C-alpha cells in the first residue's frame, strides 16, 4: 500500500485540476498530458534502449486512425475497436521491428524515417478508409453503458493513461528488462556474452513503446474528434526528440520536464515573438548539446550536489575512487 498512495495522490491532484479549468485550458492540459505520455515512451525507446527511431509519432497516428476507422467505417463497438487497434499497433510494430532492429544508429533512423513517410503517404492515399488529405471527422466518443464521457471527465481518462504509461515504463526500467535494454545499448557484445538476447530485447523495447504510443493515439482521437495526415507528420517526432534531449535523455523525469517546457513555451513566446519560437527551440537545443548533454536533469543534479552535503560526499567519493585507482 505504501507504493500506491503517491500514485493515487497524483491521480487525484492531476484529475482535480481539470475540473477547475475552462474548456480551452482543458484542451491545452489534455494535449500536454498526451505529449508527456509520448515523451515518456520515446525516452524509453531512444534514451534507455538507445534506438534512434523516428516512427514513434506514426504509431500515435496509427492508434488514432485505427480506432476511428473501427468505430466509423467498420461500425464496431468501442471496446472491440480499442482491442483490435492495440493488437494492430503491436503487429505493425513487430513487423517494423523485426527487420529494423537488425540495423543500428544511422540506418535504423533511416528505416524508421522511411516508415514514417510511408505512413503519411498511406493516410493521404487511403481514400474512403482514411479520408485522404482531409482525414476523418464527424465522429465522437461512443457512449459507454449509457454514459457519455466529456469535458473534465475525459481529461481524467488521459491522466490515467499518462500515469499508467509512467508506472509501466518505470517498472520496466527498474527490472531485468530495463538492465538488458541499457546493456544492449552500452555494449551489445558484452550483453550477449552475459546471456542477453540483444535482438529480442530491441524488438521488445520497440514493440512495447510503439504500442504505448498507439494507445495514446487512441485516446487522442477523441480529444479533437478529428484525425488527419498533417497531425502525424515528421515535424512532431522531432519535437519529441527535442523534449527528451532538453529534459535529460534516459530519465523519465527529464521527459516530463522537457515535454512540459517545450509544449508550453510557444504559449508564452508566441505573444512576444510570433512564430519565431522554433528559433528559440533550436537555440536551446544547441546550448544543451554543447554545455549540458544530460539536459535539465543534469543541471538539476549539479544544483543538488552543490546544496546537499550528502550528495557532495557522493561526488567526492567518486573522485576518491578515481584517485585510488
Amino acid at each position, binding site marked *: 500500500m505504501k*507504493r500506491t498512495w503517491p500514485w493515487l495522490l497524483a491521480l487525484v491532484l492531476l484529475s482535480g485540476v481539470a475540473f477547475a479549468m475552462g474548456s480551452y485550458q482543458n484542451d491545452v492540459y489534455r494535449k500536454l498530458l498526451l505529449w508527456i505520455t509520448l515523451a515518456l515512451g520515446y525516452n524509453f525507446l531512444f534514451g534507455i534502449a538507445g534506438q534512434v527511431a523516428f516512427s514513434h509519432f506514426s504509431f500515435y497516428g496509427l492508434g488514432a486512425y485505427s480506432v476511428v476507422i473501427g468505430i466509423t467505417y467498420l461500425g464496431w463497438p468501442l471496446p472491440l475497436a480499442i482491442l483490435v487497434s492495440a493488437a494492430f499497433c503491436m503487429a505493425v510494430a513487430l513487423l517494423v521491428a523485426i527487420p529494423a532492429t537488425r540495423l543500428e544508429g544511422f540506418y535504423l533512423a533511416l528505416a524508421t524515417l522511411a516508415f514514417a513517410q510511408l505512413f503519411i503517404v498511406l493516410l493521404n492515399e487511403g481514400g474512403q478508409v482514411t479520408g485522404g488529405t482531409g482525414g476523418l471527422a464527424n465522429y465522437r466518443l461512443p457512449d459507454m453503458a449509457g454514459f457519455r464521457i466529456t469535458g473534465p471527465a475525459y481529461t481524467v481518462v488521459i491522466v490515467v493513461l499518462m500515469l499508467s504509461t509512467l508506472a*509501466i515504463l518505470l*517498472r*520496466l526500467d*527498474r*527490472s*531485468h*528488462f530495463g*538492465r*538488458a535494454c*541499457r*546493456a544492449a*545499448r*552500452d*555494449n551489445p*557484445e*558484452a*550483453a*550477449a*556474452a*552475459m*546471456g*542477453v*538476447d*540483444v535482438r529480442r530485447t530491441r524488438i*521488445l523495447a520497440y514493440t*512495447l513503446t510503439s504500442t504505448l504510443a498507439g494507445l495514446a493515439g487512441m485516446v487522442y482521437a477523441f480529444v479533437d474528434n478529428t484525425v488527419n495526415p498533417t497531425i502525424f507528420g515528421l515535424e512532431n517526432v522531432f519535437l519529441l526528440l527535442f523534449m527528451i534531449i532538453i529534459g535529460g535523455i*534516459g530519465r523519465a523525469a527529464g521527459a516530463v520536464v522537457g515535454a512540459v517546457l517545450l509544449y508550453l513555451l510557444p504559449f508564452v513566446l508566441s505573444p512576444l515573438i510570433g512564430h519565431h519560437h522554433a528559433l528559440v527551440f533550436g537555440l536551446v537545443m544547441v546550448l544543451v548539446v554543447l554545455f549540458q548533454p544530460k539536459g535539465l536533469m543534469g543541471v538539476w543534479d549539479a544544483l543538488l550536489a552543490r546544496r546537499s552535503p550528502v550528495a557532495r560526499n557522493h561526488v567526492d*567519493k*567518486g*573522485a576518491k*575512487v*578515481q584517485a*585510488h*585507482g
Partner: protein
Amino acid sequence: MAEPTPLLQVRGLTRRFGGLLAVSDLDLAVYPGEILGLIGPNGAGKSTTFAMIAGAIAPSAGEIFFKGQSLTGQPTHAFAARGIVRTFQHNKPFDSMGIEENVMVGMHTQIKHGLWQVVLGTAQARASERAARDKARHWIDFVGLSEYAQAPVGTLSFGQGRLLEIARGLAAQPELMLFDEPAAGLTSAECGRLAEIIRGIAAQGIAVLLIEHDMPFLMALAQRVVVLNFGEKIAQGSPVEVQSDPAVVAAYLGQVKVGHA
C-alpha cells in the same frame, strides 16, 4: 579408476578466415574445477579458439560439446544460459549503469519471471529482483569491490574494472569461465589478487580456461596447459612438462624468459 567426464569437449574445431586457417582440427577437453591454460605465440589461434568456445564466432567445422550437449550453431547469448561465461581482455562494462546493476546484468539468464509480472509488480517479480540484488552484492564482495558497490562504473580503475568483469561473469552462475588475458594491463599486486580470485573460482568447482601472455602468471596458476602453434595443438600437459617439451621450446618458449619453472 574411470576417466572423469569432461565438462567441455571440443572435437575437430576448425576456423577459416578466407584462405587463412586460424584454427585447424583442434581437440580439447576441460574438466570441472580445473584451471586450464591455453598458450601459443602471436597468431597461433588462441583468440579464435577462445571466441569459438565463448560463442562469439561460429566454427567453420568441428563440434563443441558442453555437458554432453552440442553448442554448434547456438547464438552467443545461449552460451551464458548453458553455463559458459567470459571476461573481455579490454574491459567491457555497461557504462550507464552502476556497479551493482552491471553485476545484475550477469544474472539475466537466471531471472525467470516474465515482463507481465514486472508490469503488474507481482510479489514473485519483486522477490526475485531483491534476490538478484543480494546475489550481486555477494559477488561484488567476493572480488573485493564492495566499497564501490553504489559507484558509477566510470570511477573504477582499470584493475577494478577487470574485477567487475569477473563479478559480472560469476553472477551468471557459470560452470565454465573463460578468461581472455586477465592479467593484461594489471600491476603485479593486482595480478597476485587476480590469481587468488581465479583459484577461489576453481575451488568452487567452476572450470577455468584462460589464455594469457604473462607466462609466470599462467604457469603458476594453471594445472594443465595446452600449447597452440599455427592453429594446431603442439603440446599439452602440466606446466613443467610443457615447458620442457622440445616442440614448445622451439615454437614459443625459447623466445620468452619463463619464471616459476
